[in-house]
């Protein structure tokens, strides 16, 4: 944490869809950024610096797109930074932006993250055939399915916990007007009957491929004092990374995730996250990752995460709602997915989440991960000034 407090005073996102064919790349990022500015009641001129994040440039086929996007984000004459930390990038980008405020370098920072996956094909962009690199898996699912199997084996979880998460997050998405997948009549049978893709992961247990963007305006305490709506305050934030492979690596419950969580809890003065947090937005691209992350983040003891999910506690109305927005399972513009988690946490503590609001949420966790479960970014935001 820094010497200066950081407030989130504006939040915006696009309507996430499989193909946002009505806008250019600039139009997409602009839509989220303009909404964040409007929420903050600030103009382009008010912004001191822009921090932008996205996943690989090959998704859109634009190398270092901050160069082309400088005009659309009102960044001309300002500092502009482009972050890329794989799937965690949306979180890492928000953290880099927050540090500009916390370090006292800038007063009003706009941060934006996006992906326009419909410009290409995610499967192609993630797994091009490169000489000397074996291609035995199939996209991200082929990488993560073995980890899910390992989790099930290790924890002894019944094999329907994944179905339950898939249904729950999609029910949450029905309350979120921005969500990509809004599946009417979603239920356990619909998920169970969907095709098995990467056994044990079924089609409806996976995230979609989306076009979308998310943006936030962060300011110093002095500027936040004039904000039109109550801000969310940063109570803790951090990143942790570990190697993608090494001998003896625990990929199911990675130490980087545990260390990152411990760091943000310490910063926020949280000793029992299950008690002290009202809700959490976790990066769950495959349903089984909810119980896995519940353990990794200390909401449940090792091997017990699935019990928390199975108890219903993680649904809206439960003791610890997880992904009230519908999560990554309902909207996945990859580069923006992490920032959407961070932004949803902030919306919750600003009492701004509409139908998917957790009543009286005072503190919430935003979480993102990427690479081979190796890059983690998290923040805790609160209604009260820390």
């Amino acid at each position: 944490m820094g010497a200066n407090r950081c407030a989130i005073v504006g939040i915006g996102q696009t309507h996430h869809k499989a193909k946002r064919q009505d806008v250019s790349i600039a139009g997409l990022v602009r839509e989220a950024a303009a909404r964040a500015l409007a929420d903050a009641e600030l103009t382009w001129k008010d912004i001191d610096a822009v921090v932008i994040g996205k996943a690989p440039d090959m998704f859109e086929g634009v190398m270092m797109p901050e160069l082309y996007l400088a005009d659309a984000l009102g960044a001309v004459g300002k500092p502009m930074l482009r972050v890329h930390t794989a799937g965690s990038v949306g979180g890492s980008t928000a953290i880099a932006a927050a540090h500009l405020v916390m370090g006292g370098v800038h007063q009003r920072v706009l941060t934006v993250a996006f992906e326009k996956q419909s410009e290409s094909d995610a499967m192609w962009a993630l797994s091009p055939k490169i000489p000397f690199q074996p291609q035995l898996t199939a996209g991200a699912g082929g990488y993560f399915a073995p980890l899910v199997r390992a989790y099930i084996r290790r924890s002894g979880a019944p094999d329907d916990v994944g179905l339950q998460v898939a249904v729950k997050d999609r029910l949450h998405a029905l309350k979120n007007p921005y969500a990509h997948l809004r599946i009417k009549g979603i239920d356990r049978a619909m998920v169970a009957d969907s095709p098995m893709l990467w056994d044990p992961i079924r089609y409806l247990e996976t995230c979609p491929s989306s076009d979308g963007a998310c943006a936030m305006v962060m300011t110093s305490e002095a500027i936040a004092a004039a904000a039109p709506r109550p801000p969310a305050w940063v109570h803790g934030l951090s990143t942790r990374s570990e190697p993608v492979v090494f001998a003896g690596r625990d990929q199911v419950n990675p130490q980087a995730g545990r260390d990152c969580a411990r760091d943000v809890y310490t910063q926020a003065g949280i000793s029992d996250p299950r008690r002290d947090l009202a809700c959490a937005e976790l990066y769950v691209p495959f349903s089984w990752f909810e119980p896995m992350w519940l353990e990794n983040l200390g909401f449940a003891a090792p091997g017990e995460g699935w019990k928390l999910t199975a108890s219903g506690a993680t649904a809206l109305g439960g003791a610890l709602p997880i992904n009230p927005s519908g999560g990554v399972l309902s909207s996945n513009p990859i580069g923006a997915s992490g920032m959407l988690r961070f932004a949803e946490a902030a919306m919750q503590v600003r009492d701004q989440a509409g139908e998917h609001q957790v009543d009286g949420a005072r503190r919430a966790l935003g979480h993102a991960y990427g690479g081979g479960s190796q890059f983690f970014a998290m923040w805790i935001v609160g209604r009260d000034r820390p």
Partner: protein
Amino acid sequence: MRDVAIIAFAQLPSVRRDVTREEVELVQPVVAAALAQAHLRREDVGFTVSGSCDYLLGRPFSFVMALDAVAPWPPIHESHVEMDGAWALWEAWVRLQAGDIDTALIYAYGKSSLGDLPEVLVQQLDPYVVAPLGADAVGLAALQARALIDAGRVTERGLAELAAARRRQAADNPCAQRRAPRSADELLAEPYQVAPLRAHACPPISDGACAVVLAAGDTARRLVSSPAWIRGIDHRIEPHQLGMRDLTASPSTRLAAERAGALGGRFDLAELHAPFAHQEVILRDALGLDDGVAINPSGGALSANPMMVAGLARLGEAATRLMTGQGRRAVAHATSGPCLQHNLVCVLERDV
């Protein structure tokens, strides 16, 4: 602002093509050398951040394997920018301002030899109305050179003389790629690459890597005898389309210099990231540097231009010279994008 200094810099000799080393093997030796110079163990680094670009290698997530070079175990506090490493250094400097950590490691690598760099750089341009023209970086830089010549601020001979001077300076830099001395007359006899630019006025294509260590306040003083203090650092971006800019000026460099406190002061040396010879003229003017300042004593980007590395290397080269007593005050600069679209300026100073 908190006092932060560059306390170590290591780089690989730039080469046209390094086939034996993969990314991790480019980075591992420079990280090890920079940490050794800083008298730091890797587990003592507070924050690590790197700069690199997938398109140079043609594959997504290339930074993931390179991370092994720092052995991020136990897990580390880390970030990555898809930019020149100079911007990674800026992120680290910002991170150090928060006050809870005291050291940062920055590294950058670039292996341009795998693809056809001019073709790769086309992908950087507006994807709707510019990239489809296939406008390559040399062709665009040549537009800027012509504008400067038309404005009477440089001549083709002037560019050759500037390039010859950089080669003379590069002869003393074992990491430079173009070190063979050539006279301006010899250079002027080269054919045009894209007129008015001949090869000597364009950067070489390079593979390379470098690493820098930053430390704050007393930690910097404890670790090394002469830290190169960052007295100011800032960067600014311009409109993307060349037709919307005055190509003969660099207002973003000027503004960044103003914010970094680089205007009006005395400098012993300047390391300017000018991949094309004429860009040095534009940058010198934007920074208001007079004839008393040694420009690019390392040989600069005309002598070695590993993409995503060369900007960070300018900061490292300038700092190294201060730390070894070759000057007291320096300005370093990095650029990104076509024709100097995005510019970073850093003022460095050593204690007397």
